[in-house]
């Protein structure tokens, strides 16, 4: 049953995503992409739990790799997007 409920969330999120992103103008497509990239670093949540759990050394190591990579994605992605968006000015 939980899978059905997760599928429901997925379906709604996809439709919402399409509606939201279609409204982003072409001029912002590069920051949109790097910003979306930062959001995809959301895997950090799963990685944190796996890295802090002591079920097995292999899982911890993989979790730590996951946390590292996802952090690069999150921190780098948001900062570079902010740097770009700061340049978009109207005169």
């Amino acid at each position: 049953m939980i899978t059905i409920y997760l599928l429901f969330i997925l379906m709604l999120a996809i439709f919402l995503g399409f509606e939201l992103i279609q409204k982003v103008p072409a001029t912002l497509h590069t920051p949109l992409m790097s910003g979306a990239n930062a959001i995809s670093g959301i895997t950090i949540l799963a990685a944190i739990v796996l890295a802090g759990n002591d079920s097995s050394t292999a899982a911890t190591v993989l979790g730590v790799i996951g946390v590292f990579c996802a952090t690069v994605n999150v921190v780098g992605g948001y900062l570079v997007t902010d740097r770009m968006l700061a340049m978009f000015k109207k005169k």
Partner: protein
Amino acid sequence: MDNLVFINVVYVFAAALFIFGLKLLGHPATARKGNILSGIAMLVAIIVTLMDQNIVSYGWIIVSVLAGSVVGIYVSQKVEMTGMPELVSLFNGVGGLASAAVATAAIVASDLSSGIATISVIALIIGAVTFSGSFVAWGKLSERISGKPIVFHLQAIANYGLIAATILFSSLYVMDPSSITFVYVVIALALIIGVMVVLPIGGADMPVVISLLNSYSGLAACAAGFALENNLLIVAGALVGASGIILTNIMCKAMNRSLINVLTSGFQEVVTNDVVVEGEIKPIITEDAFYVFEAAQSILVIPGYGMAVAQAQHAMKELQELLEKNDAEVVYGIHPVAGRMPGHMNVLLAEADVSYDLLLEMDEVNSRMENFDIAIVIGANDVVNPAARELKGSPIYGMPVINADLAKNVFVIKRSMSSGFAGVENPLFFKDNTRMIFGDAKEVISNIVRQFND
């Protein structure tokens, strides 16, 4: 309140912030705020996740977060705007690797039920393909790997074989989730698939590939969310997936090609057209071009990747100010596939301090093309090729282009007479109203600027 319930309540709040952040990204005036909101959502979600009771030690988490932050801060401050396509490719790859690592960790941590095992292995495959594919794309964009499609004998068959093998070994693992060895085989196969899928795609099609890999990095997170039953991973991953798919679609439409065509074009025979473009190339020196600029009332600038390579955007901004002082109107017409990723030109021009309301889309400038006194093409080629409109049989026939040839005067700044990225002849260069200014884009524009100042 139960710890897990609390965490999930905060996740709902974070999801709302992500959505609101993306909504604000819909306009340049609010976009920065939107990105910050999205960042806050991420921070809140991370902090609340640290309260999870399954976490017994924080040492490694802190170390890896710190190390990741240092790398993230360093690259985000150091990258130049010309290098954004490469950076986004790398970030896509790193995101894919994170998802692959998480899925593998879930697999080795315990024996999973067959349902969870299936979705975990899917997350693993998408993540690994994104990782290796993005690195090949990065290599092509940074020209460490040839931008030409790399194809070898029987490659298509080899790809089908790889996919079949991946499905086989994945199924073997799912049937017996304690047999981890099969997972290692799947990882290796998925990594090879990523390389094999991107290698045959040419450099000109990289905007599509980056968009698609961006979408995959979201889908990988989404699949990992299913494996670990985490709502926020599913919502955020789906948003990113949708974003990448929309951009992929826009890029394909802008090239009048299907996604399948872009992904497999390396395997198809090169379309050669025997159409010989008739006419004469008419070069002009900047001294003469200057008089036309001085008399012009409205000027359209059409930038392409060549502008980025020559770093001509700052000189162009200088010229724009002089022209505006001279009471002329200057706007920029930007084709969706100009540059190496969606919106690349806009970022470069924003960096040069060009106001974003002067950056117009293709349809906006095409509808008033006849009224422009000058269309100046800087380092663009295929996106202004009239063959797309009038030359049946041309490989790019049917592609929507900026109709620069319909402006009163056309100036094309170009290094030499070589054909564009797509290797297609450009009849624009031979039109009666076209004048070629040969030279480095930055030098040519600086030259005109200098004459304005004299």
